[in-house]
């Protein structure tokens, strides 16, 4: 019956496209998490009254973050073509999408990290200082653990934006469900493929949201 309703559907193609979407999202998410936390920490620590208060570094980081957040993602991919080619050796396929995905999402997540760190009770940081803690200890044992629920809910929001980005990257040859929907669906007028791809992407988004919410709830002992 499925084949009657959707004549152009090939299960294997969908499996490959779904796998590629997951692959791009998860690898890019890991990269975004690492770079985003670094950016967020840098923004937070070098800000006024921070542990590493430094106007210059704060300005440079903030400018970097603002510039890359301002560029529309589809243009960012094009801009990064030479960089991607240098790094990955190709500008096609899921791997080639990763640099643009990470550079597009990390500044966004970095801002969310900064906000999360600002929410950490200053008194707790002060208590750690009064105990003789080093800055490193304060970062890893106070700031990050105390902001963890916000960091996780932030990465969930970022993950969903990333799934959207992978679909856009797909439209210019990165693979995944976006690519499949555009090339095999839209361009060949097989709209059933576009429809199924959309449904699959919505399911993936719901899945990430559910997992993110679950972990946030588990972590929050307040």
């Amino acid at each position, binding site marked *: 019956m499925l084949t009657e309703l959707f004549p152009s559907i090939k299960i294997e193609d969908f499996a490959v496209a779904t796998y590629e979407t997951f692959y791009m999202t998860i690898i890019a998410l890991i990269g975004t998490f690492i770079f985003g936390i670094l950016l967020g920490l840098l923004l937070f620590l070098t800000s006024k009254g921070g542990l590493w208060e430094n106007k210059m570094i704060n300005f440079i980081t903030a400018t970097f973050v603002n510039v890359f957040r301002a560029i529309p993602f589809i243009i960012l991919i094009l801009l990064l073509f030479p960089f991607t080619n240098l790094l990955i050796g190709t500008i096609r396929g899921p791997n080639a999408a990763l640099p643009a995905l990470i550079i597009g999402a990390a500044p966004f997540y970095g801002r969310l990290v900064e906000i999360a760190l600002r929410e950490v*009770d200053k*008194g*707790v940081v*002060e*208590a*750690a*200082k*009064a*105990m*003789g*803690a*080093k800055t490193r*200890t304060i970062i890893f*044992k*106070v700031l990050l*653990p*105390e902001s*963890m629920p916000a960091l996780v809910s932030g990465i969930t929001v970022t993950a969903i934006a990333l799934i959207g980005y992978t679909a856009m990257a797909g439209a210019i040859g990165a693979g995944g469900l976006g690519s499949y929907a555009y090339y095999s669906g839209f361009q060949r007028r097989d709209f059933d493929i576009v429809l199924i791809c959309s449904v699959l992407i919505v399911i993936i988004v719901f899945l990430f949201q559910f997992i993110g919410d679950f972990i946030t709830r588990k*972590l929050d*002992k*307040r």
Partner: protein
Amino acid sequence: MISIEGLSKIFTTNKIKTTAVDDLTLSIDQGDIFGVIGYSGAGKSTFVRLLNRLEEPTSGRIFINDQEITALSKSKLRAARQDIGMVFQHFNLLWSRTVEDNIAFPLEIAGIGKEERKKRVQSLIDLVGLTGKEKAYPAQLSGGQKQRVGIARALANKPSVLLCDEATSALDPETTNSILELLVDINKQLGLTIILITHEMHVIRKICKNVAVMENGKIVEEGNVLDVFSHPKSPVTKKFVQQIMGYDEEDYDLDYLINTYKHGKIIRLHFVGETTNDALISKLVKTYDIDISILQGKITRTQAGAYGTLFIQMSGDPDEVTEAIIYVQNETSVELEVVRDAD
């Protein structure tokens, strides 16, 4: 022994200078419970934060146990801070850690091994009376219990000084008392010096041996709690004493007493220190052939003994009454004043 010489802190915001602590000189003995009282804005919180350099002093020197805190490098200061425990008004516990992990935190900072950490955490939990709550998160505790965790955490590295910054101000009166009792206990058991910042006179009354009254960044009065209580000099101190003893309506009441009780001597007894424990009134009645009725008064307890005033009416054989008065004047430290000398 803590000594502070010419300590000042000036904050500059928008080019406006505010002197929070103004040329403060003070010394505090080892094992003392030293109270610093003042209204908000008096500079007392800044003062206590200067002691472990959470705020950097603008000028002046601080010595704790012969170590000049104000001369230490950053890394030496970190080591010195492990010898200075601090308790906060809002507890400042890590919500992401359990009670035992919160108490273990300063031990992790000090680089103490896991086994030793476990042992010390357990004994601290027992010391502050939180046995059974080891695995609880701060959110599951009451305010008083949270402050007990805060105190245990401050004691973890066996400090010689404990700084309490408004440690009881966020607690209800009953919980405040139990926390104060815990502090006295700790002071006796571990012999550490406690410096306590508060705006509540009854906290000073209950546990402090010595007190400094702060106003506008300066210490306006300082000394033994009883002395400061019984002979307050500055207007601020008088206000604080009134918090405990009520307003000075004695003159009005005196006329009332004299007019109401027509016979016998009316006597004012002023208690300062130990003697209140000695059952003075019943001793007088048993020794001399007199009657005593208590008219009005208020006695309050401090760490150094009782303090307060009592009005009594003494009647009976005039000779016996005179002898009783001489006994009080010569044999006890109670100050006696005959308010009305009729019989």
